[in-house]
């Protein structure tokens, strides 16, 4: 029980250390925006592949029917940092942590790409559903992915130890 509280304390500190710099202008300019632009480009390519006519400019995806601007909170960065904080707070070897971080980031970005793409389609074809999908549904799915990935990984890490 005590080790769980220790884990939570470490997790909370790491989460604050990782997330709070996202508020600063340099982090936004040099980390968040380039990541958002990459996601917009990848999502634009995916939307093009499924027949949507879109134009991508920086972090903005536009089409005659809808437009989205991928900002902080929509690029998966905060979820990645959430997962990294949990992985680093958990007692495991450096190799296990590194692997979990890399796999977790890939997984979250894959889910986030589906999120952005599907949100654009929802916004284009079912505008009234957009807000609910944008926050309540997709944000929950992305964080649930991080939590479940961490849960599965931590069980394996304990089993191997």
């Amino acid at each position, binding site marked *: 029980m005590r080790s*769980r509280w220790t*884990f939570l304390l470490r997790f909370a500190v790491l989460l604050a250390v990782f997330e709070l710099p996202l508020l600063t202008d340099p982090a936004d300019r040099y980390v968040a925006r380039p990541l958002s632009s990459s996601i917009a480009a990848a999502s634009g390519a995916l939307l093009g592949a499924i027949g949507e006519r879109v134009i991508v400019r920086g972090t903005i995806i536009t089409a005659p029917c809808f437009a989205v601007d991928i900002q902080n909170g929509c690029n998966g960065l905060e*979820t990645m940092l959430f997962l990294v904080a949990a992985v680093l707070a958990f007692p495991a070897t450096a190799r296990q942590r590194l692997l979990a971080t890399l796999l977790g980031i890939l997984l979250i970005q894959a889910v986030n790409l589906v999120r952005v793409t599907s949100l654009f389609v929802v916004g284009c074809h079912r505008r009234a559903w957009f807000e609910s999908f944008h926050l309540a549904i997709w944000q*929950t799915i992305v964080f649930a992915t991080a939590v479940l990935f961490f849960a599965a990984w931590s069980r394996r890490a*304990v089993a191997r130890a």
Partner: protein
Amino acid sequence: MPLRALRFIAGAAAGFLFWWYATPVYNDALGAAAAQILQIDKRLCGPRADAIDRNVFVQPRLCVVPTATIPADQLTYNIILLAALFAMRGRNILAFIASCVVVIVTHVLSLIVSIESTYANTNGVWSTQHYSLFERQLWISTEFFWRLAGMFAIVFACWWIAQSSRKPGV
């Protein structure tokens, strides 16, 4: 594993339906609780906070201060993840109830933070006259942190502690 996945999805669906349909009533209760606490901030002139659709409308009563509309449903949807995680492993009702209490308390606090952040940063001259630069940054940073990660971190923490009677990991 498939059973757990099904339970997770069922919990998420139940959480979503609860969040969707209970929000107007829940926002009213949240608004009332937050308004009681905000009476101590004299700058807000004894505010009322009433639910209007999925928002909370803040109206100072004792002097002329701008009103504010807070999209309160965006502060409470972490209940969906809470329901999904606890549904994965049944028979943990007491821990679920305790977690709900913790999450409800954080909802009140997050509404207070959101109201203060709105008043501190979106009312132009009134904001700069009544809130110092440090206060404005503090409120908006807290709100930003909470909305981006904190609201899910508290759910994760509740669930993690609830697993304490089991072996480490999950």
